[in-house]
C-alpha cells in the first residue's frame, strides 16, 4: 500500500472526565484521565489495532476520535478535517466519512425500529437518498453486502441472533459510504463460531471498499490476525506501537510482554512449556495515575528513573515505537 497522506492523524489527544460531588454545587473533586496524550496515524486502507485491558482508555479514545466525546485537548484529523473543532455542516460531513461499529449487538440497535429504519438512518440524516423507494432498495443492497437477506428489512432487532445483529450494525456503518470505521470490540460479545464470520466479513468489506479500520479489542490473538499495526494502551497512554509481527515477536515494553504471555494458546504442550509473566496487582486508578512511568508499580524491570520521569516516546526500530526507560 503506497503511503501518501494518512487518513487519520491523532496528535496528543486527551480526554478527561470530571469527577464531581455535591448536590447543588457540583464541585470537581478530580479528573479521570481516561485518555492522556495519545498520538498515532492510520494510513488509508490500513487496520490499526488498539489493545489493552479494561479501563485502559481504548474505548474512550475511539469515541473521542469520532467526536462523540468532546476532546479535552489535542487534534484529530480525518481526511484532512479536524473533527475536534468542527461544528454543524462540517462535522456532519466528517461524520459521514467516519463511522463506528459497536461492541454490544443488543444495545446498539434501537429496539423499536425496524432493520430498514436502522440501516437507512445515515441515508436520511445525510440526505443521501431522498426517494423512499430508492432508499429501501439501497437498504436491501446493504443487507446483501453483510450477508443478510433483503427480505428481513421489516423485522425488529429482537428477532435476530447476536451475529446477525452485528451484521446489521455493520450495514448501518456502511450506509453512508465511509472511508474510516472505528470497530469498538465488535466481536467480543459474540460466540467463538460467530466471531470468525464477522471478522471475515470486515476483511472482505475492507478489500471491496478500501476501508480503513481502527480495531479496538482486548483479544490479542484476533488483533494479530486482523490488524496491520498494533498499539498497546495502558492507563490512558500508548506504551508501544509497531507492525503486527514486529510487535508480537520483538515486543519491547514489559507490559506488552506480560500481556502477550497471559494470552492462552490453544495448544497444551506449548501453553504449558512457555514462560508466563504474571503481573501482580491491578491496574491503578486513572484518577491518580502513578508518577513517572505509569506501569512502574507493576513492572518487573522498574528502577529509580521509572518512578520519577515519564519515559519518552521514541522509535526504537524503524516503525517500532515504545515508551520505556529500560529497553
Amino acid at each position, binding site marked *: 500500500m503506497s503511503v501518501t497522506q494518512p487518513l487519520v492523524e491523532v496528535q496528543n489527544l486527551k480526554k478527561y472526565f470530571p469527577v464531581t460531588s455535591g448536590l447543588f454545587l457540583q464541585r470537581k473533586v478530580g479528573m479521570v484521565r481516561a485518555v492522556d496524550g495519545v498520538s498515532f496515524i492510520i494510513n488509508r486502507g490500513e487496520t490499526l489495532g488498539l489493545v489493552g*485491558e*479494561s479501563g485502559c482508555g481504548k474505548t474512550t479514545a475511539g469515541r473521542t476520535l469520532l467526536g462523540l466525546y468532546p476532546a479535552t485537548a489535542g487534534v484529530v484529523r480525518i481526511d484532512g478535517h479536524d473533527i475536534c473543532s468542527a461544528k454543524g455542516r462540517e462535522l456532519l460531513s466528517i461524520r459521514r466519512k467516519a463511522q463506528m461499529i459497536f461492541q454490544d449487538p443488543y444495545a446498539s440497535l434501537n429496539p423499536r425500529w425496524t432493520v430498514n429504519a436502522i440501516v437507512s438512518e445515515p441515508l436520511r440524516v445525510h440526505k443521501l437518498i431522498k426517494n423512499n423507494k430508492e432508499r429501501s432498495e439501497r437498504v436491501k443492497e446493504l443487507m446483501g453486502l453483510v450477508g443478510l437477506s433483503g427480505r428481513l428489512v421489516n423485522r425488529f432487532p429482537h428477532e435476530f*441472533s447476536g*451475529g*446477525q445483529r452485528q451484521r446489521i450494525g455493520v450495514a448501518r456503518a456502511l450506509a453512508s459510504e465511509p472511508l474510516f470505521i472505528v470497530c469498538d470490540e465488535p466481536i467480543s460479545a459474540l*460466540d*467463538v*463460531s*460467530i*466471531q*470468525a*464470520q464477522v*471478522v*471475515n466479513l470486515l*476483511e472482505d468489506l475492507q478489500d471491496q471498499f478500501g476501508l480503513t479500520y481502527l480495531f479496538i479489542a*482486548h483479544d*490479542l*490473538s*484476533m488483533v*494479530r*490476525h*486482523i490488524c496491520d499495526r498494533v498499539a498497546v494502551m495502558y492507563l490512558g497512554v500508548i506504551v508501544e506501537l509497531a507492525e*503486527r*509481527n514486529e510487535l*508480537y515477536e520483538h515486543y519491547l515494553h514489559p507490559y506488552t510482554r*506480560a*500481556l*502477550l*504471555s*497471559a*494470552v*492462552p*494458546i*490453544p*495448544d*497444551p*504442550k*506449548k*501453553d*504449558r512449556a512457555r514462560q*508466563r509473566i*504474571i*503481573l501482580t496487582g*491491578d491496574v491503578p486508578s486513572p484518577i491518580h495515575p502513578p508518577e513517572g512511568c505509569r506501569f512502574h508499580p507493576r513492572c518487573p524491570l522498574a528502577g529509580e528513573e521509572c518512578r520519577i520521569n515519564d519515559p519518552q516516546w521514541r522509535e526504537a526500530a524503524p516503525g517500532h515505537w515504545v515508551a520505556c526507560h529500560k529497553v
Partner: protein
Amino acid sequence: MTKILEVNDLMTRFHTTEGMVYAVNGISFHLDEGETLAVVGESGCGKSVTMMSILRLLPMPPAQIAGGTAIYLGQDLLKIPDHEMEHNIRGKEIAMIFQDPMTSLNPVLTIGKQITESLRTHMFMDQAAAERRAVELLEMVGLSDARQRLKAYPHQFSGGMRQRVMIAMALACNPSILIADEPTTALDVTIQAQIVELVIRLREQIHMAIIWITHNLGVVAGLADRVNVMYAGYIVEEANVEDIYEDPSHPYTNALLAALPRVDRRRDRRLKSIAGAPPSLLVEPHGCPFAPRCEYVVERCGMETPRLTPVGRDHAIACWVDIKTGAQR
C-alpha cells in the same frame, strides 16, 4: 483412578411460554478423583445447565430434569432429599464458583461474614475458629493482609480479588469437587492468568477434582486433563487435552479450532468460519445437532442422532463420519 462423579443420560428441559426448551439432551460423562475436566461450548450449549442440574440449582419449574442419574460416591444426586443436598453436598462436598464475582457476593455483608457463615453452618465451627480458618483461606488464595480484609466489603475489592474471595469461599469446607462456571470470562487476560495460576497451585495443594466450564478453548489447554466439547445440549467429543488439540475428530471441534486465530503464529490464511448459527433449542432435536452447519454432512446425519462412541484411548466422538477418511461409521 476412581470415578468420583458419574453422570448418565442426563436430560434437562425448560417449560417456557414459547414451548419446551431442550437444554440438555441425554449426556453422560464422568469425573475422576483429582482430575481437571474442562467442559467447552458456546453459550446455550447446555454446559452450565448440566452442572446446575447436578447440583439441583435450577428453579423447578420451569426447569425439569427429564431423566438420568448423577452418582456421587454411590448416591444419586438427583434423587437424594433436598435437605441432604443442602447440608451435605452443595457447598460442602461440591462447591461452585460463578462467572460474575460482582453479583455472587452479597454487597452488604463483609467478606469475613460471608466466609465464616458457611464454615459455621457446614463445619459447625465457632466464630473464633471460623475466623482463623477464613484468614487461612484468604492467604491461600493469595490475598495479603488477610485479617484486615475480613472486615472489608466486596465493593472495596477489584474483580480479580473478588474472584479470589469466591474461590476461598468455595474451598472453605474442603470440597472434593470444585465446579468453576466461566470463572475468568469477566476478567482481563492478565488477571485471568493470575486466577488460572492460582487454581493450578491450589489443585496441587489440596487434592480436588475440578470441572472448568468455559467457551474459551485457549484457557483450557494449559489447565485441563480432559475436555468435553458440548454443542446444543449434547457432548460431541470427549478426549484427553492433547488429543483435543492435536487430533480433533468431531467436525465441530475441528471447525472451532480452525476458527481461532493464534497469538503465537503469523497470519497464514483467512479464518475458517462456521456458517450459520447453533440450532434453536425450542425444536425437538432430530438427527445430529451440528448437521446443518457441518461440511462433512451425510444423509444419515439428518435422521439419526449419533451416540458418543470411542475412536481411541479415552477419546470418543458423536459423529457418523470419520473426518480424516470421509468414511461413514
